[in-house]
């Protein structure tokens, strides 16, 4: 899939245009920055210099300093670690769990399917943010509960999508052909059904990662995400909101980081959608 993706993004097949490539490059920079933050950040993220609190951007502090005199640029870089890793881990958990449940429900059908899906569907009733807040309220604040809350908030979406894919694929003739050779459920599910269902789910996972960054930031803004001193974009915006007029840069930079990463992920995801030709592919074969 990766090879085909690169192929498509470069020259062959439907051309998604230049935007996804730029977005992809931006994403790559973002991930690199998050990864390399301990080495590239000019200051330690928790070094307080109270004498230099609330300073505007300068040569020493490119993004300014916050109310404790901490370097905003360093905190945005370290915050990228928190925000991106929470979003990535929670979406990976949500996606793999959703695929497993959806695949089994879609394949087995019957009462198992009906009851499990009824339970999963209950999470549909709440907007993701409400569900996540509710879960964090139960689990207590912190990175782990944020990951869990986000994973559960998006679980229904991945489960539903996988299930509908599997149910459609199950009726394909090539599944009957495998059954005719004596294939068991493991072979059918793992070799015939899941590989054919995975592409659209992965694209949706990619697009959802953008939402998860927003959700993580929201939880952080309400003080329910990663706990201080660990920097997170949402948490930084929360403390910045108190200094909105005196030191607007404190809220501006993490906000810009959130916006940039969400936009980049969405543009890139749309490009992948076009490049993989996810919707059309199912009909042309």
């Amino acid at each position, binding site marked *: 899939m990766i090879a085909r993706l690169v192929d498509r993004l470069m020259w062959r097949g439907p051309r998604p245009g230049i935007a996804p490539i730029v977005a992809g490059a931006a994403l790559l920079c973002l991930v690199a920055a998050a990864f390399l933050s301990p080495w590239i950040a000019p200051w330690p993220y928790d070094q307080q210099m109270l004498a230099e609190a609330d300073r505007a951007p300068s040569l020493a502090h490119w993004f300014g300093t916050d109310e404790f005199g901490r370097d905003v640029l360093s905190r945005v870089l370290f915050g990228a670690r928190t925000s991106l890793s929470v979003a990535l881990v929670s979406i990976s958990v949500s996606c793999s769990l959703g695929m497993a449940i959806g695949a089994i429900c879609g394949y087995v059908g019957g009462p198992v399917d009906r009851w499990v899906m009824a339970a999963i569907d209950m999470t549909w009733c709440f907007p993701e943010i409400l569900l996540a807040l509710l879960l964090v309220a139960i689990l207590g604040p912190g990175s782990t509960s944020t990951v869990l809350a986000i994973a559960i908030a998006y679980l229904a979406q991945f489960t539903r999508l996988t299930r509908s894919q599997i149910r459609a694929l199950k009726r394909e003739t*090539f599944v009957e*052909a495998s059954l005719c*050779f004596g294939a068991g459920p493991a072979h059918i599910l793992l070799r015939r059904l899941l590989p054919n269902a995975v592409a659209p789910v992965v694209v949706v996972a990619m697009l959802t990662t953008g939402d998860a960054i927003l959700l993580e930031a929201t939880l952080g803004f309400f003080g329910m995400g990663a706990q201080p001193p660990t920097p997170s974009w949402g948490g930084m915006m929360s403390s910045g909101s108190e200094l909105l007029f005196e030191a607007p840069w404190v809220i501006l930079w993490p906000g810009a980081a959130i916006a940039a990463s969400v936009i980049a992920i969405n543009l890139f995801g749309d490009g992948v959608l076009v490049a993989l030709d996810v919707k059309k592919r199912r009909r042309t074969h």
Partner: protein
Amino acid sequence: MTPILSVENLGHTFPGPAGWFGARKRFRAVGEVDFELHPGEILGVVGESGCGKSTLARLIMRLYEPTDGTIRFEGTDITHLSRRALQPLRRRFQMVFQDPYSSIDPRQTIAEALTEPFEVQGVGLSAAARRAEIERLLALVALDPAMAGSHPHHLSGGQKQRVGIARALALGPRLIAFDEPTASLDVSVQAQVVELLLRLRRELDLTYLFISHDLALVDYLCDRVMVMYLGRVVEILPRGAPPRHPYTQALLAAAFAPDPKVRRHIVRITGEIPSGYDVPTGCAFAARCPLVEDTCRAIRPALVGDGHHAVACHLAPPIASES
């Protein structure tokens, strides 16, 4: 000679739409099917769309669990064998499907599709044996060995159907069920595939169950023809025998109307096909039969005849008068 396949009173009902409460109605797709298939024979199955031909083939292949009756393959009762018990027997009966376009996983290469049967059956093949096997199978169906690496969407419909046939041949079956193998191909390709089937039967000593709604093709290819109506067998007739059931007569008349020998038998069919949810107690064809009598509506006629020609009709003349 023991039949390779013998089917007794075979029937299948599908569950109707699911409800949360109460019993579901069941849809009768196949009922009371009796026939024997002898080694080397080609038995055609014809009937209108929806009469249960594909369901019958899938029952015999044990892709559906039969709700009534028994299926014996080479003398072994396979009607309710578990998947594991059936696994080794599956090498000996295989199926080729109606739609070549979806019968190969789009993610598989042709080589992978052709070796999947071995993999599923747990036959370990060395890399060399695998290559030899792929080459052998492609050669059997007259495909270019260079095709092994391509994906199904690079192949034409006829080539895909050949791959489907090669894959069914992989494990060395005795019996192959073909579900309208040529229905979605254009005429010239159809003819090639039919010739291929005849050659394969000769070379590999195969027995075919051949489903089609192309009566001319069935007449060309098959030793005997089984005519189905609403899930039941109304007549089994040897090639060339004059049809005795009014439905068969009407089918043939529609297919070969220009032929003066059968034109005088033309009977026009009118009326609706009854629903499988509510199968009539009498003859299934009674509602549309031009010759219908009161007995037909009350009592379902049994399939009677000798080993060659059998008919399920109260009004059909006795078989003995035929020859």
